């Protein structure tokens, strides 16, 4: 695979605000190979969500190009699945019907019964068996987020975009969901972009971590995480992991302007 599935080339974007244009992305480059999983970290407000909106085709960049599987992104496309920090489940639908929502928009060859079977299978995979007919309000925050992941995957998207999906969860629930993510990735192949504030999450889930600079964001640092075998939570407590976390933390401090860039006298 020489062509990346997601290819963001020197993207420049500014929001028009009352005080004039606000540059958010400035010379951003991200390339994700098919089946890859990239975590994007960076200071708050640097433009991470903006990046996801560009990949999803919800916005067009002012300059530069966004490519998905060899096609230039001009608008939304059904090969993308999204999940956010807010699970945004529809309160008037059951969990099952919530998960099946994308199939009402995206053309599908599956029969109604097959659609439902697929939704049930995904729900079982994330541990929500038996909750299909519940309302979202009857579920805990972690369970809602699981359902929202199922909804993002139901139409078998090539690209999964996750914008801080675990940001609002407590530490234990979050670690559970990291393992759920690995289980999903094993069953449902996708190419992923994960926005996160949690460095441990980034090295546990991704095979590449990209650190963005402060606003306007550009790619500041790229770290490859070797993908050898199955990952377990204990991996986070090895010297290698500590070393990686250290480097990333340092890069974030640079991005925040709290530490001098490498190679310059502090």
């Amino acid at each position, binding site marked *: 695979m020489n062509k990346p599935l997601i290819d963001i080339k020197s993207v420049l974007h500014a929001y028009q605000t009352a005080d004039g244009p606000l540059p958010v992305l400035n010379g951003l480059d991200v390339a994700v190979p098919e089946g890859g999983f990239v975590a994007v970290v960076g200071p708050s407000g640097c433009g991470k969500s903006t990046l996801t909106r560009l990949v*999803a085709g*919800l916005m067009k960049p002012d300059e530069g190009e966004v490519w998905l599987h060899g096609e230039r992104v001009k608008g*939304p496309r059904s090969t993308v699945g*999204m999940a*956010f920090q807010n699970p945004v489940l*529809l309160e008037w639908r059951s969990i099952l019907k919530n998960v099946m929502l994308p199939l009402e928009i995206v053309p599908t060859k599956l029969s109604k019964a097959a659609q439902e079977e697929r939704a049930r299978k995904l729900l079982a995979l994330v541990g929500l068996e038996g909750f299909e007919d519940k309302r979202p309000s009857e579920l805990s925050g972690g369970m809602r987020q699981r359902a929202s992941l199922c909804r993002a995957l139901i139409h078998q998207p090539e690209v999964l975009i996750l914008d801080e999906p675990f940001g609002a969860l407590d530490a234990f629930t979050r670690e559970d969901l990291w393992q759920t993510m690995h289980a999903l990735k094993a069953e449902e192949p996708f190419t992923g972009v994960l926005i996160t504030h949690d460095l441990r999450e980034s090295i546990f889930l991704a095979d590449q971590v990209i650190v963005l600079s402060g606003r306007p964001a550009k790619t500041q640092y790229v770290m490859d995480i070797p993908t050898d075998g199955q990952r377990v939570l204990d991996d986070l407590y090895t010297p290698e992991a500590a070393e990686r976390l250290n480097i990333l933390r340092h890069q974030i401090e640079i991005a925040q302007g709290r530490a001098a860039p490498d190679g310059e006298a502090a």
Partner: protein
Amino acid sequence: MLKKIAVPIVATLIFLGLWELLVWANGWPNYIMASPSDLPAAYSKFWNLFLIMGWQTLWRTVVGLLIAIAVGVAIGMIMGFSRTMRDALYPLLVGFNAIPKATVVPIVALLFVGAHDFNTILIAFMISFFPIAVSVSIGLSTLEPEYRDILRSLGASQATIFWKIALPKTLPEFFGALKVAVTLAFIGTNLMEIVSPHGRGLGALFDSGKTNSDYPLMFAVLIALAFLGIVLYYVVVALEKVFAGWAERQPS
């Protein structure tokens, strides 16, 4: 279930009893304050009028309300989807709503003199569309962007997003407003019926009670109005249960 029906009935009986007691204890003659025991006579004497007039009041209120829903939802949608339209229409709507409708009633009555049905429906509509428009516009404009994005990122059209997400999500607010609107429409209908000369409906019956100094009749009309108001209100509540019942918190 039985308790749910019995409680309001008992409460109503207690209320009537206290009213009777109040009139009796003060020795008020029925040209100052009629008592519940005067009412059956009034109803049996004018029962056919009550049926005819009650029906007139009812259907004109409902038609006015239906128009208010159509216009209110349309205005709400325009304001909910377009910032510019919201900025443009909001002050106009607020100003229009601030005019006491009691002052508009005689103007409309003179403007379209004799067109009783039209006048009454017009006032019922004018007085009741505002809360509907505001609630729909607020419901639509406060929709979190992520709700839009989950469908928009799949290539859904604006119309699909409206039907699948924006509209159902706005229903609880819409019904909240409708409960206010139904009462307002009812007030509008009655204002018009009382004010317009040779009017129709329960308002006109009330007016004729006044001119004939038939106090028990006036009170009987009040009770009939209250009854109709309750019926209309609970029809809305029933509709709310069907269409927006999911928004109700489970008692825990």
